[in-house]
């Protein structure tokens, strides 16, 4: 149904008089046909219609003056019912045109590379210039992006805050990138401890050894048998180290943890190692450590026994590929050749990088450490 309105034939026309109809109800009309004659102040004008259809009702009669916009007549489009009695034309049943099959456009492929945090180009440059590890920076820019200011703030940090941030960055990277596997074993440390006590009883206090030293030496010697726990993961491959530089985890009184290296442990005797170890801990706690002592460890050793924990589950310090942890020395009933004795035992744990070694290597390592600690005089 559509309407034919009194048109506006001039900017100032408000009304017009219908003079004459040129069509009748039921008549088919086409676009452009003159359907009426209208009189305005400008004169008498033929009015055309701009649609095809069939005249339905003539609503205004000749001689009537009506305002612009008044419905003069109604029309029916193709297939519609007429208001006036007419032979209803059976509408052609035209099936709606088939919607064309649109070839689906495959969605863009998911990017396969994992993108890390957003870092502005300027921030990246600044971080390189200031030697700031971007892993350690929290972004406060739009969408959490790292900005120059964020980098500079980290760079300006010193002391415990900076260390905490560095640890956070390293541990996050470790847990994100290194597939850890864990193995543990209980070591009967009685022989070593007894041997140590006898040694220390005959030495002045300044030359006595702490039990960590034989543990560290045993670890270094065992790595000779399992070299794929001793070295660095660089980009996408393992670089074995000839020598064993053991990073010793030392907690700082003011908070924080560092693991500087004892170098070439496999080739040093226990007395030398004790001296170096003692000196290293003292210097670390007073802040006199050199950079190479931090960057060179090929494996890390951590002992939390004195804090009272039985077992450690350590986290590998990248780019190393393994870490060995020891818990506290506890007295336990122990079965030896069928009878029970009280022995002082310690739990040793290995965490290792599964990209480089398998459980088998780890097991051989721990077993070797265990065996070595049963013969302390050979360390």
């Amino acid at each position, binding site marked *: 149904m559509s309407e034919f309105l009194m048109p506006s034939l001039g900017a100032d026309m408000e009304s017009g008089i219908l003079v004459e109809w040129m069509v009748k109800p039921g008549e088919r009309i086409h676009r452009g046909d003159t359907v009426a004659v209208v009189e305005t102040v400008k004169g008498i004008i033929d009015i055309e219609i701009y649609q095809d259809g069939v005249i339905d009702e003539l609503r205004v009669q000749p001689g009537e003056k009506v305002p612009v916009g008044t419905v003069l007549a109604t029309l029916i489009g193709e297939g519609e019912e007429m208001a006036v009695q007419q032979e209803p034309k059976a509408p052609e049943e035209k099936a709606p045109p088939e919607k064309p099959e649109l070839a689906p456009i495959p969605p863009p492929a998911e990017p396969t590379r994992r993108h890390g945090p957003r870092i502005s180009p300027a921030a990246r440059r600044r971080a390189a210039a200031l030697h700031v590890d971007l892993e350690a920076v929290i972004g406060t820019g739009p969408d959490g992006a790292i900005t120059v200011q964020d980098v500079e703030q980290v760079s300006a940090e010193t002391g415990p805050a900076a260390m905490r941030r560095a640890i956070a960055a390293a541990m996050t990277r470790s847990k994100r990138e290194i597939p850890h596997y864990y193995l543990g074993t209980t070591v009967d440390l009685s022989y070593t401890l007894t041997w140590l*006590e006898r040694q*220390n*009883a005959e030495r*002045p*206090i*300044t030359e*006595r050894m*702490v*039990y*960590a030293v034989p543990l560290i030496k045993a670890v270094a010697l065992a790595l000779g048998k399992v070299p794929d726990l001793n070295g660095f993961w660089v980009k996408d491959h393992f670089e074995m180290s000839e020598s064993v530089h053991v990073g010793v985890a030392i*907690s700082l*009184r*003011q908070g924080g943890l560092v693991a500087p290296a004892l170098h070439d442990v496999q080739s040093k005797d226990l007395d030398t190692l004790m001296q170096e*170890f*003692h000196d290293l*801990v*003292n210097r670390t706690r007073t802040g006199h450590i050199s950079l190479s002592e931090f960057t060179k460890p090929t494996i890390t050793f951590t002992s939390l026994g*004195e*804090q009272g924990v039985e077992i450690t589950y350590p986290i590998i310090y990248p780019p190393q590929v393994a870490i060995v942890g020891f818990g506290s020395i506890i007295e336990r009933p122990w079965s030896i050749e069928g009878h029970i004795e009280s022995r002082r035992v310690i739990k040793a744990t290995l965490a290792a990088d599964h990209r480089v070694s398998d459980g088998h290597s780890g097991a051989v390592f721990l077993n070797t450490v265990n065996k070595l600690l049963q013969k302390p005089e050979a360390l």
Partner: protein
Amino acid sequence: MTQGEIKDIVLKELVSIAPELEGEEIDPDLDFRDQFDFDSIDFLNFAIGVHEKLEIDIPEVDYPKMSSLTGCIAYLESRLSTTAKE
């Protein structure tokens, strides 16, 4: 040497290892390990310091007697009087 003097030396050695203890209250009966997180190297340094100041030997088996302030003072007092007697 009086008990007071021994106590001063002991405290000085403790503070040299744990500077944050300066001016702090120390529970005389509580284990060093529990009170201020002494590990084996800390204790060794402490024992070496006491050994050097008081010029007495401290056998490893006696370390447990020195694990608290009260224990330290009692042990060192007895060791000093013993040495003096020798």
